[in-house]
């Protein structure tokens, strides 16, 4: 079957039975329709689905959701790849079961924003996505937000969500909290122009002393990119601040401007053939957390953790 356009549903379930009653027919119908089938789910649900599907399980691409849902922008890039593979294999549509790992409480907003962003970035994708929410374990706020990020709700009856908010409206109302910092910064530098970037990196290297090459190189690239971004798009006083905990470096670039107008900035893939627009996208790929605050001026804050 060939369709265009996204269908994005939240499944609110409170038992294995409720889960299987919704997900199994969804996958089996997909098999019958010749759709590509992908399930990024927790281990116990993966076992449930594999058992129930039997030999048909071989037609489903199973993904460990704890690996899949680490950084929202990486997950988005991963879905794009999955969709491209599905299309390359001749499938007209992909059916996806995406059970988000909301993680620690301080990451809940980041993943709720991800659920919202999906509606915009995949609006035209031939994909039917069901996002299961386990009512037995997820906090009430996360479940309530599912009604705002999914146009369709199943609980278990399938219906339009009356509380759905398009991403352009929801994202500004739901700013991602800045990654926490431990007290006063270790460095607080004014930024005037790009000729200072080398000095900025020398300071970052000193603060991340002892780090192996891999996370250090990522950190140097992302601090350079957000500094350049602040210089190019910000206004007034620009400052760069750095903090460090045992295994994490946090960097913030602030300016007096209003911040980016596009609430989707950095989530989407780099525009094809355009030299710009990739900086924040790459930053989101490489950072453990990135948030933009526009309450007083603009603050872009990232954190990178050494493994």
């Amino acid at each position, binding site marked *: 079957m060939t369709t265009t356009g996204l269908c994005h549903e939240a499944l609110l379930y409170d038992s294995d039975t409720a889960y299987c009653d919704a997900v199994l027919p969804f996958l089996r119908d997909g098999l019958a329709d010749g759709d590509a089938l992908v399930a990024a789910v927790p281990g116990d649900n993966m076992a449930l689905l594999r058992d129930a599907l039997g030999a048909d399980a071989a037609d489903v691409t199973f993904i460990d959701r704890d690996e899949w849902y680490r950084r929202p922008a990486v997950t988005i890039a991963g879905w794009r790849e999955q969709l491209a593979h599905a299309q390359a294999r001749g499938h007209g549509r992909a059916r996806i079961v995406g059970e988000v790992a909301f993680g620690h409480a301080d990451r809940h907003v980041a993943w709720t924003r991800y659920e919202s962003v999906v509606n915009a970035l995949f609006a035209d994708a031939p994909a039917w996505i069901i996002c299961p929410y386990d009512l037995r374990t997820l906090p009430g706020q996360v479940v309530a937000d599912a009604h705002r990020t999914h146009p369709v709700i199943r609980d278990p009856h399938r219906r339009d969500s009356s509380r759905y908010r398009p991403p352009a409206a929801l994202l500004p109302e739901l700013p991602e909290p800045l990654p926490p910092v431990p007290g006063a910064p270790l460095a607080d530098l004014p930024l005037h122009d790009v000729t200072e970037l080398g000095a900025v990196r020398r300071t970052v290297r000193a603060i991340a002393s002892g780090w192996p090459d891999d996370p250090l*190189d990522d950190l140097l690239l992302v601090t350079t990119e957000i500094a350049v971004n602040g210089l190019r798009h910000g206004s007034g006083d620009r400052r760069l601040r750095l903090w460090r905990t045992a295994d994490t470096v946090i960097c913030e670039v602030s300016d007096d401007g209003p911040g980016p107008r596009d609430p989707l900035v950095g989530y989407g893939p780099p525009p094809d053939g355009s030299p710009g627009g990739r900086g924040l996208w790459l930053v989101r790929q490489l950072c453990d957390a990135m948030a933009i605050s526009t309450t007083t001026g603009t603050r872009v804050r990232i954190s990178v953790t050494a493994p």
Partner: protein
Amino acid sequence: MGREVTAMVETLQPGDHVCWTIGTDDEQLRVTARFITDGLARRHRIVYFTHSLLPQAVAAGLDARGVPVAEAVAAGQLRITSSSGGYLATGRFDAAAMPAAWAAEQAVARAAGWAGLRAIGDMAWAASRLPGSEDLAGYEARVNRVFAEGYAMALCLYDRRLFTAAELAPITAAHPCTKGPGTHEAGWEPGLRMRFAATPPRLTLRGEIDASNRHAVAAMLDTLADEAAAAGTTAEVDVSEAAVYDVATITRLVRDGRRTYRLIGESPQLTKLIRLLAVRPAYAGGPA
């Protein structure tokens, strides 16, 4: 401004092309005196194109700062001219003609047996909107090709009293390195060195690439690709001693249309970034 700052100019080597921002005439003379003294000792020929100061004033100022001006001029090692009597004699800046002029100057110095060629340019004329100066940043980027051969080097003086930060930004980025107002550290040296070999066409990058020099790198990559195509061979870029902290440059390395570069000494980090940036949204109907 202490002695250490002018000492930075001694870290420059043949092949370098530096945007050196200055704030006073005294600073200009102290920096150039040190640059010239270093060049005289290394048997380099030095050509100084002045603009805001008369040639006689430059000569007197250098002399007062210990440069044996008369002796060096008599020996043919030092030439101080006004830019309006030199490459601006026609009343306009002919960016297209400049690389050939520099190549000729270089050939003459070589033939005369000098170990290198140092160019000093007081770029104050560009602030007066001289015809042709609108392409100054493009010229500064393209002329890297001449200096990157490793015989000549250039010290471009930009007076911060004459250029706004916005005017300087594209000019800065056209140079592989810039000594900006915030650079006061001892131990400073050029952030990036570019060296070019013609056969086979190969660009060697040493140092760090970021938004402060990305236009210089972009122009060299374009030139490299053109020359490799003309020679019917593959352009090589040696990045074994380079770190790329610029998404635009990485994008250019991997996605610049039909052009391809053979990268030598690519770090695992660069490989990772190239792979990330090469991801193409491939499903039909998806947003671009």
